[in-house]
């Protein structure tokens, strides 16, 4: 057995299989468990997925939102047990694999994703 397949097998039980199939450009609400002392509560972080990175146990996604006029980004590990659920609010077909260009945008444009032309043609029909 190759070393790589051993590593994959070991981490397989911690890789989530029920993660919703969100992609870059989707608007998501991420429910995370937060510990405060003894209490545990759920925190929601809503925004646009601007990047997906890695695979297997290492997979992460970056969510960007504008909070009180200030851009905020959070990187979540996809397989973290602290992530309770991920809701997909809206989907889009971005032209880029990573939406880093949103970082340099201000105001309304900061949340507007440039979509593929095919998708737009369908939408205007």
């Amino acid at each position: 057995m190759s070393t790589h397949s051993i590593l994959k097998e070991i981490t397989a039980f911690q890789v989530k299989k029920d993660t919703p199939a969100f992609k870059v450009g989707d608007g998501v609400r991420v429910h995370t468990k937060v510990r405060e002392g003894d209490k545990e509560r759920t925190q929601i972080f809503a925004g646009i997925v601007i990047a997906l990175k890695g695979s297997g146990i290492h997979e992460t996604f970056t969510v960007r939102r504008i909070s009180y006029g200030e851009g905020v980004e959070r990187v979540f590990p996809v397989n973290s047990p602290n992530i309770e659920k991920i809701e997909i609010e809206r989907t889009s077909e971005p032209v880029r694999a990573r939406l880093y260009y949103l970082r340099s945008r201000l105001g309304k444009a900061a949340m507007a994703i440039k979509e593929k032309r095919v998708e737009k043609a369908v939408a205007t029909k």
Partner: protein
Amino acid sequence: MISTLLGKKIGMTQVYDAQNVLVPVTVVEAGPCPVVQIKTTQVDGYNAVQLGYSKQKAKNASKAEKNHAKKAGLEDAPRLLSEVRLEEASTLKVGDVITVEAFKEGQFVDVIGVTKGKGFQGVVKRFRVGGGPATHGSMFHRRIGSIGMRQTPGRTWKNQAMPGHMGSLRRTLQNLTIVKILPEKNLLLVKGAIPGANGDDVIVRTAIKGQPKKA
């Protein structure tokens, strides 16, 4: 009971622990190690247990290796043999097999391996010497510089950083936590990095500096 195992570095990955924290781990295939020979003060002048690991193809093993293995009741000659020195005579017998179950999750271990060879390297990489400025006509980039004073002391100090061969050295990393044990696959998950490339031989032993205090 001794708890030293011979093994092989598989590679690094990450796992979530009980607190949902992502922990970096190195996967080590350790054992099973059959006891090949018991050495005693009466016969050999010291007490030790000789362990074997993995196996050699019959065409590669020498006659001496094959017969040594046969004495221990093994079919194939082990690829690796290593002794564990003991204060007193061991209660183990030839033919006993030591597996990863000799360790417990959460305990400290030392891992011994041979670091990756880096070849002939300069002082900047080998000894972390600062080097000179890159630009502004410096003409002194990654050179070694002065190696001493003048009449006093009149010689170069010992341990003066100079270029030479780097890496391929036996190194021990102490007090690494065992995150997880997978007995059916003979695997140990050790927290952090260990010396050597993936596939290199390593020795895992109970930490000589003691175990973590229980909270």
